[in-house]
Structures are given as structure tokens and as C-alpha cells.
């Protein structure tokens, strides 16, 4: 048979390509998509992964926080470009959980339901879908805490108890701090609103929606949260600075903001970038008025259309259920472990230099156990944006709280009909 030279070249290329593919098959690679600083926690765990699975490589794809979640939404939409393991932030877990695009880790072959007790309960509630399925495993959590500048508070002649006794005493302390030191109590009046909205919730009651989908924004909890925020604004004790802006980080750096209510992970951010020169001046306390709430947190999920689910599950287990790995993440990026077992390490008893030697991790561990298990709803971010916009009107345009909340409810209804 006479073969055209072109045909021979083609045959050679095909053979080579096939050989390359089969060679590739021997070495498996799983793709883990994450965002900063979680990507650093993943990279810190890679040596341990290599020891356990020398034949499986891990490729970490890291994007900025917003870009990561947009890219993941697009990947879920089209079913292409999906990683084997997907990191998801708390703000997106509700929406993603409802999508049905993930493996139910509570069922076979994962049977993660048996491991639920290993984690703090509120994080498991956040990762649970509407039908009781488990779409992700929590890796780190953000126990809500009140960080305050000890030097400023003392200069105003106040104590920690003045800040935390009640919301009224917190605001009164703010007035005194402003008067004596010129510093603002809060970065933004929305800080109070946000934390109050998380308080007084019973297990199973959502932040914006009840389990049956009822919109809760006209409830007394929202009215009171708005009232407290407005009271702080009227008292002139908030710096009117949203988080993560230049103004905010400068305010923290220069001691213009005396307290900040946020997840305990903020200490890591303050130490590593926001305000390293304020080391030793901060202290961590319970949130005012005996409130317990969570801020942020990260999860790992396996997309239903992932290519290497078995290896992906091994990886998720390593990141979330291995005590040493969880502690490694904590040392690497100050990620507070969601795994209870990791919270008993002697590391927790160590004083934190940035907090002036305070043994704060023990406090955060106690807080984490008391946080109510608030379920998330796929429309939480939508509702949060609308409530925030109406709160702005209350603060800046003298809109009545009742009218603002009624409008918020109406707009949420209109949007979620879509």
C-alpha cells in the first residue's frame, strides 16, 4: 500500500499524542481552586499531601476573592473549567449550596454525615443545603469578637466591661472615647447593625429568611439593629468608613478607630498588613451584650462534574479533618480551625503577642461553641445588599426605619421572584 507522505506525518503525530496522553494518565493531577489567603493554607499542606499521595499532583489555581467566586459561578453555569476541589467563602455558600452543582458529601461514597460532630455546629449548618444535604466541609471559621485598643479605652478612663456590658453602654463609651481622645468608636455604623442582626437568633432561624422562605427584614431584630446603628451615627462616634478601604486601614493604623467587631481572623490581617505597628495595643473581648456571631469562614466542596472525585475527597478530608493540617493553616494564615479536635492543641493556650500577650484563642474557642447554627439562604447576599442600601437611606436621608424596612422587604420579594 502506498501511503502519502502527509498521511505518514499525521500517523506519527497521532501516535505521539496518544503516547503523551497515556503517559499523563499515570500521573494524576487534581485542581484546587482557592482565593487568598486560603491558597496559602492549601500550599502549606502540600508536603503532607505529597507524602500520602506521591502519585497525585495538586495544581492550585488562585484568584482574587471576587474573581474566584465569579469564575466558579461561570464554571458551574457552563459545566466546564470546574476544579476538582472548590474553596467557597461563607458569603457565597448559601447560593452555591442551593445550586445542586455539588456532590452531596453526606451520602455515599463520602458519608461525611458521620463526621459532622467533628466540626463546630454553626459551620456545618452553613454548609447544609435546603434538603439536608451537605455540600461542603468547613475548614476555617470566624468567631465574632470585639477587638479594642486598650490604650485608647484606658485613656478615656473606661474598662472592657464598659464596652461589653450592653449596647447602650457600648455607645455611651463611644461618646466618652470621642470626647476624651478624639478617636471614633466604630469604623461604620453598619458594624453595630450587622452584629445585632446576628444576635438573638435561635438555632434554625436564618438571618434574612426563615427556613420556609419567609422574609424576616421587618422583624423586631431588624428594627432594633437599625435603631442602634442610627444611634451611633447620631452620636457622631462612627468614622463613616466602610471596611477594606484606604480610610479604614489608615484609621486602624493611626488609632482613629478604637474598636472593631469582626471575626477573630482580623487579628492576623492587622498583624500582617493592616496595622502591624499597633502590635500589643489591641485586646479581644466578647461582643457587647453577650452576643455571639460568626464572621466569614471558608469551605471546600467537590463539584458534581469534577473529574477526580475520589482524589478530591481525599484532599478535602486532609484539609478539614487532619488535626495537624488544620493547625498548620492556623500557624500559616491565622485561619481558626473549624475542626474541634484541632482546638485542643496547646497552641491555643499560647499568649498572642499582637494582643499584648492575651490568651485570646481560648476565648475564641468558647465563642465558637456558643454561636447559633444559623442556616444560610441562597438569597442572603441579595437581601444583605438591599438591607444595606436602605440602612444608608436611614443614616443619610432621614428615611424612617419602618418605611426603609418595608421597602427592603418589597424589593427582596421582587428580586427573588426571578
Amino acid at each position, binding site marked *: 500500500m502506498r501511503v*502519502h507522505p*502527509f498521511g505518514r506525518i499525521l500517523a506519527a503525530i497521532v501516535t505521539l499524542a496518544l503516547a503523551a496522553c497515556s503517559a499523563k494518565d499515570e500521573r494524576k493531577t487534581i485542581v484546587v481552586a482557592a482565593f487568598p489567603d486560603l491558597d496559602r493554607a492549601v500550599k502549606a499542606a502540600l508536603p503532607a499531601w505529597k507524602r500520602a499521595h506521591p502519585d497525585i499532583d495538586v495544581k492550585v489555581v488562585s484568584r482574587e*476573592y*471576587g474573581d474566584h467566586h*465569579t469564575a466558579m*459561578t*461561570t464554571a*458551574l*453555569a*457552563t*459545566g466546564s473549567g470546574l476544579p476538582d476541589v472548590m474553596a467557597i467563602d461563607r*458569603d*457565597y455558600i448559601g*447560593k*452555591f449550596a*442551593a*445550586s*445542586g*452543582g455539588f456532590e452531596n458529601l453526606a451520602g455515599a461514597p463520602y458519608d461525611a454525615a458521620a463526621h459532622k460532630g467533628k466540626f463546630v455546629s454553626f459551620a456545618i449548618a452553613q454548609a447544609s443545603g435546603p434538603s439536608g444535604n451537605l455540600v461542603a466541609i468547613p475548614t476555617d471559621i470566624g468567631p465574632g469578637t470585639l477587638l479594642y485598643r486598650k490604650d485608647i479605652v484606658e485613656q478615656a478612663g473606661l474598662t472592657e466591661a464598659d464596652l461589653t456590658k450592653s449596647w447602650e453602654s457600648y455607645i455611651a463609651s463611644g461618646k466618652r472615647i470621642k470626647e476624651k481622645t478624639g478617636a471614633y468608636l466604630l469604623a461604620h455604623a453598619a458594624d453595630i447593625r450587622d452584629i445585632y442582626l446576628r444576635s438573638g437568633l435561635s438555632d434554625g432561624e436564618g438571618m434574612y429568611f426563615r427556613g420556609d422562605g419567609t422574609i424576616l427584614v421587618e422583624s423586631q431584630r431588624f428594627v432594633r439593629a437599625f435603631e442602634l446603628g442610627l444611634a451611633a451615627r447620631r452620636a457622631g462616634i462612627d468614622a*463613616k*468608613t*466602610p*471596611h*477594606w*478601604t*484606604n*480610610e479604614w486601614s*489608615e*484609621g486602624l493604623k493611626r488609632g*482613629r478607630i478604637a474598636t472593631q467587631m469582626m471575626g477573630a481572623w482580623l487579628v492576623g490581617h492587622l498583624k500582617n498588613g493592616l496595622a502591624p505597628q499597633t502590635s500589643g495595643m489591641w485586646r479581644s473581648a466578647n461582643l457587647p451584650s453577650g452576643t455571639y456571631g460568626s464572621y466569614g469562614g471558608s469551605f471546600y466542596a467537590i463539584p458534581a462534574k469534577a473529574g477526580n472525585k475520589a482524589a478530591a475527597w481525599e484532599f478535602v478530608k486532609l484539609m478539614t479533618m487532619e488535626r495537624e493540617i488544620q493547625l498548620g493553616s492556623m500557624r500559616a494564615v491565622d485561619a481558626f480551625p473549624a475542626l474541634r479536635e484541632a482546638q485542643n492543641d496547646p497552641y491555643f493556650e499560647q499568649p498572642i503577642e499582637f494582643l499584648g500577650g492575651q490568651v485570646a484563642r481560648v476565648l475564641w474557642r468558647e465563642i465558637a461553641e456558643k454561636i447559633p447554627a444559623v442556616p444560610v439562604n*441562597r*438569597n442572603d*447576599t*441579595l437581601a*444583605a*445588599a438591599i*438591607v*444595606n*442600601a436602605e440602612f*444608608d*437611606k436611614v443614616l*443619610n*436621608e432621614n428615611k424612617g426605619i419602618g418605611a426603609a424596612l418595608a*421597602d427592603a422587604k418589597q*424589593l427582596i420579594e*421582587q*428580586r427573588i*421572584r*426571578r
Partner: protein
Amino acid sequence: MRWNRRYAPYLFIAPFFVLFFVFSLFPLAFSMYLSFHQWDAARGLEAMRWVGVDNYLSALTDPWFRKSLYNTVWLALAAGIPQHLVALPLAYLIHTQLRKSRNFVIGAYFLPYITSSVAIALIFSTLLSKDFGVVNAALGTNIDWLGSADYTKPAVAIVVFWRYVGWNALLYLTALQGIDKEIYEAARIDGASSWQQFRDISLPMLRPMIYLAVTLTLIFNLQLFEEPFILTGASGAAREAGLGGVGQSAMTTAMFMYHLAFSDGNFGTASALSWILFAIIASLTWVNSKLFGRGSGNLGPH
């Protein structure tokens, strides 16, 4: 096998058509299709559900849409009109007064246009910082440019004006350079003053370019996104990100569209909104062509 040369031309022009189909025609058609569907993107393509014109009605009745449209038009006018009022005399000045330094000057004015809008917005957000910004330090003020509803829109308008004024000046300069010098000579012999030459020769002869430049500004400004998006804190908490700052005072329609799609996951209504925006831009361009475009093909001053 012999290669049939008849197909060669098609093969050579194929890359354009393939790219055009994949990156232009398909997304366009898909967004039209999407605008009639309800779709939670995270659920995959299977989750699309036909809802007719519901998305359009929903977008049009959304109070945030009205707010965003007002902001967009406000910014388009406040940033757009001064661009031309400054660029036109500037181009005339460069054309008539500068000789050697002309290229340098026009280059300096053009630089902001080719700089990344993201970089510009980030630098301006630092410059306009309330307590630590250079602008307030220079003016001796304490204005919260990007954190107060009264100042956010003007601040964004200033940045947009600064960015595009050089581009428009370049357009006008190009047109001025195309005008025959003999016309000016004849006018000078007839005793026309500088101002008369500008008013009676340059301005009418620039009319086609004014029409083009205004049309482009209209299209750019009504699609305004990057500058207000980043200036008002795109990296903030999810509930505030990309919503135009306090009181959504600089939330443009394009930003609202982005929020609907990527924050709310409501791609159907976002697509409908993009077609509504397209209709608005198309009709305003049409109005502009009716008002100013007439006779623009005629280069004569009569």
C-alpha cells in the same frame, strides 16, 4: 489527494469569521436568548426556564434601575459636556500656537486615555482619600470625596473628564489638520480676525468630527463602569461591592447590571437590562444624529 485552490480564499478569511462568531455573534445571540429566561447560573445550563418579557418588566420596575439610569445620565452629561467644551479650544490652541512641542503636548493629553482604567481609578481613590489624600491636602479641605453621597458623582465625573479630554482633543486636532490652509489665507486677506476664522471656518468644518466625537462620548459614558466601580470600593464587603458607594450615588446602569448577574446570580434580568441599555444608547445616538448629524457629510462651510 489534491488541494483544491478554490477553497483557499475561504480558508484565509476563516479566522476572522470564526473569532467573530465565537466572541461577538454568539454572546450577542445568547444574551438575547437569556433575557427571556430565568436562570440561576450556578445551577448549570439545564436550569434555564422561559419567562417571556418578565425580565424586562422586572428590570424596568426596579427602583435601583431608575436610580442607576439617573446616575448614568448625570455622569454622561457632567463628564461629557466639559470634555468637548475644553477639548475643542484646546485642539485649536495646539493647532495654531504650538509648533515644536505639539507632539509632546498632545501625547501628554492622550496618555490618560491609553492608561488602564483600573490603575487610574485606584490611583485616584488614593488621591481623593478624605483624611490622607493629596487632593484634600492641596485644597486645605476635608471633603469626603468618595464616602459622601454629595461628592461621589462629581469626583467620578472629574476622573472621567480627565481621562477622555485628550482623546477628544486628538480627534479635533486631526480634523483641524485636514482643513486646507488656503481657506485661512483667503480669510486673512479678506481681513478676518482670529476669532472670525475659528467661528466661521474651523467650527463649521469640524462639524462632522464634532458629531463623531459626541457620539463616541455618548456611547462611552452611557456604558460607564470601571471608574465608578473601583473608585467606590469594588473590593469592599460583598453587600456593598460595586454598588456605587454611599446611597448608591455613583451606581451606573452597567454596574447595576453587573451586580444583578454576578452578585444576585440573576443573569436573565441582567441580560434584559443590557438590551434596555442598548435601546437607550441606540435611541440617543439616533437623536444626536438627527440634531447634529445633518449635513455632516458636507465638508463645505456653506
